[in-house]
């Protein structure tokens, strides 16, 4: 098992290697002032590393929070200088574990955002919270700063499953966190759940989902139910390769997937995206910006932005992030700068859009992508439509319910069709 100390050592080594190699960053695209729909902020600290996780986060390192906040402040200032002061509809603070910051640090983070962002248009402000790091003082800070949505990583309500995932919380932390949030007056609450955990059964999944639906305030407003994915470079995958457990079989995973859909539908939630369920009106607007070609700024290490047709990603390494954003002569730590061709971007947009239950509306698509998707989609989806997996109307293309479980197969034909 890799320990936090191992991770940190590795991290430092990589950073040294990179800085020895004289890593250089991409310049921000010269777009002039750019209107954005959203801002994402990445907080790269966690108490321990969950075994399935491939987000960029460090276990521990809390002594670097101040330096991180200094850097974040400079990054925000650089971007405001470059693109103008953003006036987004949504903000999402993710990680990592933003709630690992203590109330004072959180307060400072909020102050930085208020300094750099025009909040006048804001209608959704989400912070990710891990059940065991969320408490009343933090909730008060967030509420006071205008946060109106909490996304809580519950993952499972079965202790042994949390252990398999190496989550460091107890199932009972989740109801507590919900009560704290509701008590603080934060209305819009999401839980994340994971299915397909080794050892999971249909019964245990039914139990977890039922517990989630019984959370304070008549249950969550939104649920994200992801399947466990064995990403390379995760401890989970290493354990799998060592034969420490067997992944659950395909039939069971399908049954779990179908159960979510039915159970949540019966409880009044709509599946509006492959993995996302919401009460009417409670869809995550921030994510919808991602999926429907919106524009967003992204701050913090590893955060990925999309502005004026350009995509880039910040360096996935706190040391480099801090080095780039030193007080003297700070620079934006952007890497992987790419500008997609219209066609490539259209393929990407269509893929994400078709994952939405509402389907892809040709007129709306045209407005965003600048080209007509209808002839293209009718060509590549014709076979699938004949088989009943896709519905094609003169105004829209939409994956049918039964197509969701095989959506990748269909979307591979869409991604390069334009």
């Amino acid at each position: 098992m890799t320990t936090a100390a191992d991770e940190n050592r590795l991290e430092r080594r990589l950073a040294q290697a990179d800085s020895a190699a004289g890593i250089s960053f991409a310049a921000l695209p010269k777009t002039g002032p750019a209107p954005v729909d959203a801002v994402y902020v990445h907080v790269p600290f966690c108490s321990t590393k969950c075994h399935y996780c491939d987000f960029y986060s460090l276990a521990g390192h809390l002594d670097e929070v101040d330096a991180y906040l200094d850097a974040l402040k400079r990054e925000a200032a650089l971007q405001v200088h470059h693109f103008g002061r953003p006036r987004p509809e949504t903000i999402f603070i993710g990680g990592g574990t933003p709630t690992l910051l203590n109330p004072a640090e959180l307060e400072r983070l909020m102050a930085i955002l208020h300094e750099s962002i025009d909040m006048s248009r804001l209608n959704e402000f989400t912070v990710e919270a891990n059940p065991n790091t969320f408490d009343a003082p933090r909730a008060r800070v967030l509420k006071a700063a205008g946060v109106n949505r909490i996304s809580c990583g519950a993952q499972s309500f079965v202790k042994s499953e949390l252990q398999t995932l190496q989550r460091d919380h107890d199932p009972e932390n989740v109801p507590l966190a919900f009560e704290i949030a509701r008590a603080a007056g934060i209305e819009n609450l999401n839980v994340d759940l994971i299915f397909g955990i080794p050892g999971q059964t249909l019964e245990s999944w039914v139990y977890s989902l039922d517990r989630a639906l019984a959370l304070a305030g008549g249950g969550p407003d939104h649920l994200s139910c992801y399947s466990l994915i064995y990403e390379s470079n995760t401890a989970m995958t290493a354990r799998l390769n060592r034969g420490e457990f067997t992944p659950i079989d395909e039939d069971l995973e399908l049954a779990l997937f179908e159960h979510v859909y039915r159970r949540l539908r019966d409880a009044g939630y709509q599946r509006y995206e492959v993995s996302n369920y919401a009460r009417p009106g409670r869809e995550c607007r921030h994510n919808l910006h991602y999926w429907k070609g919106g524009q967003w700024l992204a701050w913090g290490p590893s955060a990925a932005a999309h502005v004026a047709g350009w995509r880039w990603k910040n360096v996935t390494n706190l040391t480099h992030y801090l080095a780039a954003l030193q007080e003297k002569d700070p620079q934006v730590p952007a890497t992987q700068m790419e500008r997609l061709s219209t066609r490539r971007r259209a393929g990407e947009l269509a893929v994400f859009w078709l994952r939405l239950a509402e389907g892809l509306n040709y007129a709306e698509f045209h407005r965003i992508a600048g080209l007509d998707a209808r002839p293209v989609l009718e060509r590549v989806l014709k076979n699938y439509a004949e088989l009943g997996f896709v519905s094609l109307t003169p105004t829209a293309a939409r994956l049918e319910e039964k197509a969701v479980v095989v959506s990748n197969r269909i979307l591979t034909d869409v991604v390069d069709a334009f």
Partner: protein
Amino acid sequence: MPDDILIRNFCIIAHIDHGKSTLADRLLERTGAITQREMNAQFLDDMDLEKERGITIKASAVTVSYTHPGTGQKYMLNLIDTPGHVDFHYEVAKALQACEGALLLCDATQGVQAQTVANAYAAIDADLEIIPVINKVDLPSARPDAVAEEMEQVLGIDALACVPISAKTGIGIDELLKAIAEKLPAPAGSSDAPLQALIFDSKYDDYRGVVVYVRVINGRLIRGQKIRMMGKNTIYAITDLGKFMPKAKPVESIGAGEVGFIIANIKTIQDVTIGDTVTDSAAPAAEPLPGYRPPKQMVFCDFYPGADTEYTQLRDALEKLRLNDSSFTFEPETSDALGFGFRCGFLGLLHMEIVQERLEREHKIEVIQTAPTVPYEVVTSDGTVKMIDSASELPDPSALLEIREPMIRASIIVPAKNIGDVSKLCQDRRGVYKKTEFITTDRVIIEYEMPLAEVIFDFFDKLKTVTQGYGTLDYDLLGFKVDDLVKMDILVAGDKISALSLIVHKTKADSRGRAIIKKLKQEISRHLFEISIQAAVGSRVIARETVSALRKDVTSKCYGGDISRKRKLLEKQKEGKKRMKQVGRVEIPQKAFMAILEPGD
């Protein structure tokens, strides 16, 4: 060239791996053509494929100088290293025609093997002076005297004439060089006669056009000279002449008996044919040289352009490659499933594989290949006899009188204790026993008459297995013979895939059919619907499998704003799909078109 230098032309021939290329290394080294520092093992195997596989694929000719230590006489030695594998026998045949002598190598631990015999007879037939050489005498298990006895017994070569050497350590190389100088005849032609130069190889160079490799039989090539290709009747002016020593070295002229290359700014590939004669355009020879007997292609398959390849690119690449390997053929072909491509003929399975790999490496061309087949002769009810090289060319059953298949004489050399196993193997493959001859008390040559189709695909592997690696095989074609042959069709989701049809012996149809269908089932990935795969003879379905419908392929994961990641994942998945061909609604991977190689036993 000064008159006091004598010329010796010879090739090195042997069974595969008996050490031809290693001997060439020693000859290059000992004559000072390359220094020890420049030397890397099997120096003349300069193709990557040759290095990787450790075998020679193409013959290479080099020129070296040698001074006889006793007489002080200077010699120019033109040596050709040849491949040992049976598929490349055509290379040997060409080399024999360019030489007066041959070094017949035999491994001192393995003794006479199938291609030792075949190559020895070929050299004798070509009237070459043979120097028998026993190689690898450095090995502890070497038994040079016994092997010399075998040479005498099987080939009628004087055991006492054998030169024992180690191509690895250099033992006996000096003696061998002396023997070459003393025993091999000088070339017969005259530099004063009208020019006749035999084209034995060529290659395409992007900058210099076609490079033509020749052996001058009569007359002299001179830089600047106007030459005529006698077969094509085209005229070119020589811009450069050279020799491989082994590095290319420019020369002013090449006289009778010598070997070298011509560069004449030839951009039209079709103007150069292997076996054609080059003559002087002002003072031409009366007759072209006899040239080469064209090789008989015995394995056929289709090449279609693969992912990111155009038909015309494939055609250009095939044309360029053919300059360097005249022993394969290609003709335009179309298929419902695979579109426009080429029907290609090869000398054997390894040859096919090599051509395909050379297209990929040297020309960056990816091909989809269908499963190989042997050619057949069909007789239709009106009595006409036609050669076909694909099952899809078979006439309608009502018009079909008989199907004849190619037969071979297989000479198999095995330890005597394996006679029983080998006989059983041959009988399973519809072989008819002819005779057995003892080479020594414990090794025999067994001869069988067998259908080529039963031998060409996996017989050799099976032979190696039952003889613990000791069995070797050579074969030659006898002709075509009628048998109970039927056409088997493969249907995927109800559609007949003509590129997968094949001709099989009636008694083997069921087992082959089952094996193929099973293989296809593994290759075809699950679709959103169930796919049936069937093998049928006429209207009778003999095997059936089903690929069940895909049930789950969904990414249910949080990517946050890192949209590109998901896109790249799908794009990668799509890359994989590009290696598929759409047949109706079914995507069939390229590899599946090889499924009919499954032997079914």
